[in-house]
Each structure stands twice: as C-alpha cells, then as structure tokens.
C-alpha cells in the first residue's frame, strides 16, 4: 500500500506540474486580455510535433530548446496579427477566434503529420529506471519531466517577482493604460507574454509528447483539464493555477490508482448489497471508472460554491 501511495504521489506531482506549465500561460494571458485562449492546448500539441520533427534530424535535446522557441514565435504572431485586431470587436469575437484557431491548428497538424501517433520517444540516455522501490521502477524520464517543470516554475516566479520586466507585466495586467502612460510599450508586453505563454505550453508538449503520445487529439485530451485548473485556481491567479494543477494531478492519479468501489465503501459500514440487485452496476462502480469525471465534478462544485475559484478575485 505504501509503495502505491508513494508512486501515485510522484506521478500526481509530475502530471500536476506538467499541467501547470500549460495553466500558467493560460492564466497570465487571461489576466492581460480578459479572454480565455481556447487554442492554448494547441500550442502544447505544436510543441510536441515540432520537437518530434526536429528530433528526427538532430535528436531530442536540440528539439527541447528549438521547439518551444518556434511555438513562442507562432504565439507572438497569433497575438500580433490575429488577436490584437480581433480585440476591437470584443471578447466574444476573441473567444470565437481562439476557438477557430484551435480547430485550424489541429487540421494543419493532421495535414502535415497525418492522423497516426508519431514515434516521438524519450532520449536513450534517459531510458532507464532511476530507482526501484518495492519492486516498482520509477523511470528517469519522469524525474526529468519533474526537474524541467520545477525549474520553469522557479524561473517564471523569479522573473515575475524579481525582475523589472516582471514588474511591468504585473502593472500592465491590472492597469494597462496607466502603464503605457509611464512610457512602457504595453502592446509589446502583451505580445511577449502571449508568446512566452505559448512557449511554456510548447515545453510541456515537448516533454509530454514521448510520455503521453504525440497524436492530433493530444490538445483535445489535455485542453479541457487545463481550463478546469484555471477556473478552480481562480482566473488570472498564478498561485491558484499552481495549487489547482497539483490538486488535479494528484486527484487524477490517486483516483486511477486506488481501486475501490461503492461496495467497498458500504462494507466499511457493514452494509452488504445484493449481487443480483437492479443497482448492481452502481454498487460495483469503482474509483478508476469515475476518475475522468472528477475534475469536471470539481469544476461544477467550484462554480456553484466559489465562482471566483480558490485564489481568484474575479467571477468566472
């Protein structure tokens, strides 16, 4: 039991930090523009595909650097020549724009790389078990994912809280007009944050591609979960995104790992159920079966009982 908890905890943290890389960019972009970027998970997918292509020529490591830069550039171009023009027509137009962009990116990905899963793999140097605990291996690649995610979180936090550009970003997020009147190029800051947000999603794609699979549906798989995180954490709150990412990561991992059913729960209270009962399917319903539902259940509960999210200030 202990090793199950230990590995679930580790896997939950790995998943949570990976989700944070996506959620941090999304929540920063929302803070600035007041609009949810539906295409955010598409940048994550682009990161994986760019890295896959680069890796076929020069290997995994150059892809880890180059792919996020390319995704960041795509993000900056989208902001500069797309969103900035659509902005004048209001938030609904922006939402529809990002929604359409998500479909466009998915179609382009299928057009260029096809519909099958790509053989994008972790580098050979990381294909070993980092340690063995109670007979179970912990892959070195997962530790690498953990390391990259934590490093990015620390760097992001340092930039936002300790640097001049971080100060300008913080000011521009809440008071864009006043920040511009002090001589700061706010549109450039917005483009930069959008680009960096996209690049962060790209990094997540690069490192998640080999672990979770590189296929055209990967954005659709992760996208909704990232929105859940941003809403649960509180729209626009970086701390909230961090806490909610870990919460959802752990929730998902533990729900899959702990194989308990409603029957088991009832047994605790000495309640036995009839195996031939019409409700048999309900009694045998297990935690792993409902695991995919849990984040959305949490979303609904948060929206009902705390619409601002755990750490947010604005209502969703």
């Amino acid at each position, binding site marked *: 039991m202990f090793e199950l908890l230990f590995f679930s905890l580790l896997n939950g943290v790995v998943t949570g930090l990976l989700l944070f890389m996506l959620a941090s960019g999304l929540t920063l972009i929302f803070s600035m523009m007041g609009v949810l970027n539906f295409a955010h998970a598409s940048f994550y997918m682009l990161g994986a595909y760019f890295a896959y292509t680069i890796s076929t020529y020069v290997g995994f490591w150059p892809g880890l650097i180059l792919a996020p830069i390319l995704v960041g550039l795509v993000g900056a171009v989208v902001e500069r020549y797309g969103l900035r023009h659509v902005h004048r027509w209001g938030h609904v137009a922006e939402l529809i724009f990002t929604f359409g962009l998500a479909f466009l990116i998915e179609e382009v990905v299928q057009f260029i790389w096809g519909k099958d899963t790509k053989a994008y793999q972790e580098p050979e140097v990381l294909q070993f078990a980092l340690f063995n605990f109670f007979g179970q291996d912990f892959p070195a690649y997962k530790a690498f994912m953990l390391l990259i995610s934590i490093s990015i979180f620390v760097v992001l936090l340092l930039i936002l809280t300790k640097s001049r550009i971080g100060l300008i970003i913080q*000011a521009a997020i*809440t*008071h864009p007009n006043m920040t*511009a*009147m*002090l*001589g700061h*190029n706010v549109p450039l800051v917005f483009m930069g944050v959008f680009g960096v947000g996209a690049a962060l999603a790209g990094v997540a794609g690069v490192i998640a591609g080999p672990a979770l699979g590189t296929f055209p549906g990967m954005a659709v798989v992760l996208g909704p979960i990232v929105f859940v995180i941003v809403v649960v954490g509180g729209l626009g709150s970086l701390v909230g995104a961090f806490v909610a990412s870990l919460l959802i990561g752990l929730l998902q991992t533990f729900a899959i790992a702990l194989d308990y059913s409603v029957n088991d729960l009832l047994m605790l209270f000495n309640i036995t159920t009839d195996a031939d009962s019409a409700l048999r399917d309900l009694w045998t319903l297990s935690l792993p079966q409902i695991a995919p539902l849990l984040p959305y259940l949490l979303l609904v509960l948060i929206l009902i009982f705390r619409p601002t999210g755990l750490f947010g200030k604005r209502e969703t």
Partner: protein
Amino acid sequence: MLEVNDLHAYYGKSHILQGVTFNVQEGEIVSLLGRNGVGRSTTIKSIMGEVAPQGSVKFRGEEIAGLKEHEVANRGLGYVPENRDVFPGLTVRQNLLLGIKNMKDQGRWKMDDMFDMFPNLGRRADVNAGVLSGGEQQMLTMCRTLMGDPDLIMIDEPTEGLAPKIVEQVGDLLSEIAKRGVSILLVEQKLAIALKISHRLYVMGHGHMVYEGTPDELKANEQIRKEWLEV
C-alpha cells in the same frame, strides 16, 4: 514647447473637444480652468493618446497627435491622472521604479529626492500602494510620473478631495517641479492654487478655450469668473 491647434475629440457620437487651441512654453506653469464636463481632462487624454484626437498636437515642434500612449510619454510628456491610478498590489518603491523610463540615466529625479520631499512615502516604501491614504497616493502618482523625467508634466486635479494641509504640500511640489525646469500643465478647479502658482491660465467652456490671461488679469476679470468658473 507644446502647441495644440484646433483639437477635436469624440466619445461615441458626443463631440467633446470642439477646436481646442493653446500652448505651453518652456519652463511655464499653465493652468486649464473650467467647470466639470467642459473637456479639460479629455484635452490631456487626447494629448497623451488615450482618447483619439483630431487636429494638431506638436511637442518640441514634432507632431505627436495619433501616437500611442507610450510613444508620447517617451517623447518627454508626463501625465498624472485624476483618479490616482497607483498600482495597488505593488509597493511604493515598485510603483516609483515603474515610473523610470531609462534605468541608466534617470535624469532630474532620484527615488531619494521623493523620499526627502515626502518622508511618509519613504517610511512606507515597502508597503503596498493600495493601503496608502488618498493624499499619499496622490503624492506617489506625481512622484512616479516625475521618476520618468518628463520635460512637461500634465497634472489632472491634483488637489481633488485632499485635506488643506496636503493641498499645501501639492503646491510645494509643483513649485519644486517648476524650479527644476519642468513645464507644467495643470488642470484645476481650485482657483486659489492656480492663481498662486501659474504664469498663464486658460478657461475652458463647451469644449473650447473661452479665455486666456495671466493670474492678475483673471483676478480683475469678474465677468469671466462669474460666467465660466463660479458655481
């Protein structure tokens, strides 16, 4: 230094500025007077590019109408808004740092100057600006703009809602600003402070200038004061 010619501005279909013409010379303190709603704040916002202007705005001979806010600011124009727009989640020190345009050459004003002039800001340098009193926030907003070393500073209603003692401090700061060679365009409703410190005054009514003169001339012109200034 600043030449505004036939400036027009609109909010939706409302024609707010209807041909505003005035100028501010090097080292001058010029006040823009008038009742609420005549377009004084809109005039400043149009110069800064926050409201889209039509007409001509020249700063040091260069046409700046239509430039973006940060481009106008970087040409040497500073703006202190009426609503004391401090960044509430950032500290006093961080607010002041954000005012600096060029970290290598800060120009006329250093952070210590601000703390010398307003010891309260110095004492609360690491406190979030959102918890300062109204007067302290007003000082901070003015000091933050000064940190960008503007050649002309446009200040919108700096004494609005302040206690008489703080109004006096604002007056002292305006004099200090002028002493360091910065021109001032002051939007004020309080006639007393404008008459005391200004070199020239303009009176606005219905979206354009209705009077221009020196403080002594305005003091002597009861008709203008009654028609356009007194409530």
